[in-house]
């Protein structure tokens, strides 16, 4: 046998070997370089907001598990019709989704409501468990595809007061700048307890989550997602999407609330290189082009039961209001009181990290049709038409700076 050491006059070899092994073990155990490092905070989207109490941290961990690790099966309530088998399937790393998990919503053309609720509306469940047939789009139904959004910073968005949002609205374009944001006024289900200071109009509340801002708060959004996306009924939403019958809850209220708390306590994305001259120059161009009129650079939270979210100034680059984006982005489908061409301004924070959640490439705009930031900008119309034209007219250097700024978010 070929060996590196043969028996001979090396009587002390066993001791030496033992010493070498001991040093090796100690060395390996002590060597941090052999272990993966913690990713920089600004390079990932997940992680809790700073300043949580121990109880809040514990709830965050429970919610994190339920959101990212709890995979539903038919035994645990999946379906029978569904889009995804877990929350984390659509929001990898808490980032934006991929066309694989794009939702299809259908059946509503105007504020009179959805005309296809009896035909599987408002959401298409294009997947089904074994021995069930998934849904297909009913004939004549207009529809829109929604790419899942990033989850980060939702607690901040949730904590902005209604009054602050209304202050940003200009539904009749009174200032004549061509921008006329307005809230989507929606009916809320009975299980929603509007927070203090909520403003109503004709018994409707402001929606702020979802592509059409059709969800009032994170509980509303979470309950709908469990029900419509995974086919999980809860005591909040007990109607099964297949049989349309009330069934026993398939998830506990506590788990739903843990997930809501998790979403609320996710940190806001952290901008990379904000002081870089090119990034600074790009931000100035962004403002000069008027992009910031909808993609509002800064908002402030009101009072939140989570102290770490109270009275904080943050940078979502959104006003959470509905804006007419023109015919190219008008799919003929809407929710709440919004028009079909209106979309809620998506927050731009975390934009530069989207590729890390979308399989290495961008899938931007509401349906993921834009595979670059530039394509997404040039698809803007309606209220954003002037900004789009100004962007197209930029020289190459200015465009590069603007894109560098956007990718830093």
């Amino acid at each position, binding site marked *: 046998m070929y060996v590196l050491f043969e028996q001979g006059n090396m009587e002390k070899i066993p001791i030496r070997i033992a010493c070498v092994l001991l040093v090796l073990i100690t060395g390996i155990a002590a060597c941090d370089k052999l272990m993966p490092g913690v990713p920089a905070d600004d390079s990932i989207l997940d992680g809790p907001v700073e300043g949580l109490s121990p109880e809040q941290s514990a709830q965050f961990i429970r919610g994190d598990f339920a959101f990212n690790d709890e995979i539903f099966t038919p035994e645990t309530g999946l379906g029978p019709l569904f889009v995804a088998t877990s929350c984390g399937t659509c929001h*990898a790393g808490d980032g934006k989704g991929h066309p694989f998990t794009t939702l299809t919503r259908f059946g509503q053309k105007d504020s009179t409501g959805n005309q296809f609720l009896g035909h599987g509306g408002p959401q298409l469940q294009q997947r089904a468990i074994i021995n069930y047939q998934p849904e297909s789009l009913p004939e004549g139904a207009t529809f829109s595809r929604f790419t899942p959004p990033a989850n980060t910073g939702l607690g901040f968005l949730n904590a902005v007061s209604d009054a602050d949002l209304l202050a940003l609205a200009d539904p009749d374009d009174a200032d004549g700048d061509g921008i006329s944001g307005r809230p989507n006024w929606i009916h809320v289900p009975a299980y929603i307890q509007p927070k203090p200071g909520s403003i109503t109009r004709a018994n409707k509340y402001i929606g702020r989550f979802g592509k059409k801002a059709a969800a009032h708060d994170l509980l509303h959004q979470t309950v709908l997602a469990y029900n419509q996306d995974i086919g999980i009924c809860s005591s909040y939403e007990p109607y099964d999407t297949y049989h349309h019958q009330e069934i026993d809850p398939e998830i506990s209220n506590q788990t739903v609330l843990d997930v809501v708390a998790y979403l609320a306590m996710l940190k806001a994305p952290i901008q990379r290189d904000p002081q870089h001259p090119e990034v600074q120059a790009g931000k100035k161009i962004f403002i000069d082009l008027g992009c910031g009129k909808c993609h509002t650079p800064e908002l402030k939270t009101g009072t939140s039961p989570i102290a770490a979210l109270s009275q904080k100034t943050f940078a979502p680059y959104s006003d959470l209001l509905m804006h007419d984006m023109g015919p190219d982005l008008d799919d003929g489908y809407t929710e709440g009181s919004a028009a079909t061409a209106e979309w809620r301004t998506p927050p731009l924070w975390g934009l530069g990290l989207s590729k890390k959640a979308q*399989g*290495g490439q961008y899938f931007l705009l509401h349906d993921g049709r834009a595979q670059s930031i530039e394509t997404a900008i040039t698809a803007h119309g309606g209220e954003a038409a002037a900004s789009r034209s100004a962007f197209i007219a930029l020289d190459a250097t200015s465009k590069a700076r603007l894109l560098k700024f956007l990718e830093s978010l």
Partner: protein
Amino acid sequence: MKNFLIATTIFLITSKAKAQIDPELLRNPQTKTDSVRMNMDAVYSRPFMQLGKLPVALGGYIEANYQYLNENGVSEGHQFQMRRLTFFVSSTISKRIKFLTEIEFEDGTKEINIEFASVDLEIVPLLNLRGGVVMNPIGAFNQNHDGPKWEFVDRPIAATQMLPATWSNVGFGIYGKKYNKNWVYGYELYLTNGFDDKIISNSENRTFLPATKMNRDRFEESFNGIPLFTGKVAIKNRKIGELGISYMGGVYNKFRDEGITLDKKRKLNVFAVDFNSTLPRLNTVITGEWAWVNVDMPDNYTEQFGRKQQGGFVDFVQPVVKRPMFGFEQAVLNAALRVEYVDWNKGTFKSTGGNIADDLFSLVPAISWRPTPQTVFRINYRYNWQHDLLGNPPSHLAAFQVGFSTYF
């Protein structure tokens, strides 16, 4: 005082018991020395102790380890694990009828499994009958999985997380070997109970053949009434090594229930190639296995669950020192490396045409010390790169493991 009396009593009893040990009572049963062992012989290629002249032999192995894992910079700290305690009982019922069973306790008593319990009847060397709980001969690791045989703390990922090692079922079959100078040819053919639809509907969120092992009823009844076929042919040259080709296939879904047709029959196919060889002069032992899985799914079923999978591993084990150490005459110190890869979802997204990832690549350098051939102490360092379904930047996992495994 009470404790002192108990301790004294125990001491006296054990001292007495020790004095009564008959050195001839427990002995290694003679094994055939003229035959060439192949992977298919693994269940009987184990050390047994025979009790006097009784036709029953006992054996087993134990595996325990320490590990420190770190995934993306986050660790759960130091862990001590009792991975397996396995008992073998074999019995020579007559000259050509024998019985062997393997009962395994995993992770303490978290899992208790009968991994093998079969009666073998030799008609001629080329034709043996086997029935009971058999280990389906897909690849080599499934039948040759004893901890003390390997230089690595973890079992190969492709063998346990894509293929379902250890994969045992109730069934019957035949096997045999033919010798021709330096060559040996072997075959195995079995019909057993098979898989169920958990393989495409489980909490792993991927096509996962091991999910079927959760179905305890499979030792009592077939999920769909269609036998699973497993067959393997292997060839071995005493000087070159062994090559095996195996296939396992059957229907995994419940296509009919109470006489009512629910779906068409959906097939699962697994192909595997395994090999092992020892390089001349260097004495480097190379062991490897690669498998391909193909699952027939409903067209509109979620792409989360892969229609095709592939994966395998290659182990390189290089003896570095072979000489008496610490009084062990046959001690060997080895350097080893395992390279492994699994793609749980081989295909492209319908929506984008892009690659579906859900894969893992792993390197495991290792040092092992064998004071005797039946006992191994091992130090492993593992580094995994794992992509999610979408192919996002990989998750990094590193592990430092120290453990032992020994037959007893």
